[in-house]
């Protein structure tokens, strides 16, 4: 539980909200510094509202404000915006992307890194982000690498990876987590309304699941 520093690397401003923000809040509460590196501003998000409150040109500004608000709610003081463009991460130079993540990892010296499981995270940006994190950390000697918790939600992830080996109860910080989700209002409001109609949302949100990345060397 007690980590030296936690580094969270995701491609979109709201990627931490549903699956990781409780874990982040618990680490912040126990005094662990958390750095959040976010690769894009979610410029290609599709939720524009009825009537629309945003357009393609204003959405990135709105999502940046929402991300900053989510970080404030969670107590993250170190937010890094890497300036890539939504949906283009997989087309970037893989070594250069890994270089930038490696530089942040070298500077912050995390004992725990949280990202997406490459190949099991559905959105091409998610998979490319996770792959870049693994590529960056793989340059370090195995015994010096931080633990990597991966989020995965592809249909075949349990079949291929087994059950998640880290299952965290985040009910102690559920109010903070809900506030972080609400901070990403432009993208999460509709989902939360649909979830509250189903009635099982709170139980689902109180548990966060990760697969510890297994190095193949």
């Amino acid at each position, binding site marked *: 539980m007690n980590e030296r520093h936690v580094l969270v690397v995701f491609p979109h401003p709201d990627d931490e909200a549903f699956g990781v923000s409780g874990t982040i809040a618990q680490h912040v509460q126990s005094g662990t510094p958390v750095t959040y590196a976010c690769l894009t501003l979610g410029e290609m998000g599709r*939720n524009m509202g009825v009537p629309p409150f945003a357009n*393609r*040109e204003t959405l990135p500004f709105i999502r940046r404000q929402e991300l900053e608000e989510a970080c404030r709610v969670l107590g993250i003081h170190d937010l890094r915006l890497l300036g890539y463009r939504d949906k283009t991460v997989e087309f970037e130079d893989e070594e250069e992307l890994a270089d930038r993540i490696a530089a942040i990892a070298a500077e912050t010296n995390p004992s725990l890194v949280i990202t997406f499981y490459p190949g099991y995270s559905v959105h091409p940006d998610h998979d490319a982000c996770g792959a870049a994190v693994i590529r960056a950390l793989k340059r370090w000697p195995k015994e010096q690498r931080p633990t990597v918790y991966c989020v995965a939600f592809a249909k075949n992830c349990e079949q291929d990876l087994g059950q998640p080996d880290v299952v965290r109860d985040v009910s102690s910080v559920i109010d903070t987590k809900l506030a972080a989700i609400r901070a990403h209002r432009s993208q999460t409001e509709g989902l939360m309304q649909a979830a509250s109609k189903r009635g099982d949302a709170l139980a689902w949100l109180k548990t966060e699941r990760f697969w510890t990345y297994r190095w193949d060397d």
Partner: protein
Amino acid sequence: MQPIDAAAVQEALNHLANRDIYIHLETTNGAYASHHNEGVFSAGAYIRNARIRFTRGKITGPGPYRVGLKLDIGWVYAEGLTHWEWTKEGQLLLAGHDYEGKLAVALELSGEPFA
């Protein structure tokens, strides 16, 4: 953005004809479309800041609308447009939102490159 006023959009298109402009054209059904429903074939396309010049631009349809731009040696068009905005920077923003407000298509024209 406002529901499309076809006459106003036509006026904006006329204003942008016969000059070098920058285009953003995008269609998408979202990266999760076939994750949520395996029966959906996921497809999309995206162009940002390509420079074009059109000789005639026209908005048609009863709404949702279609916009076609006739180039010297080609065409650009978008279908399913529902909303528009003419920004103070002189950009013509057109978008098509589905019944939940999700963006499905965007066609944007600007005298200067988009940020």
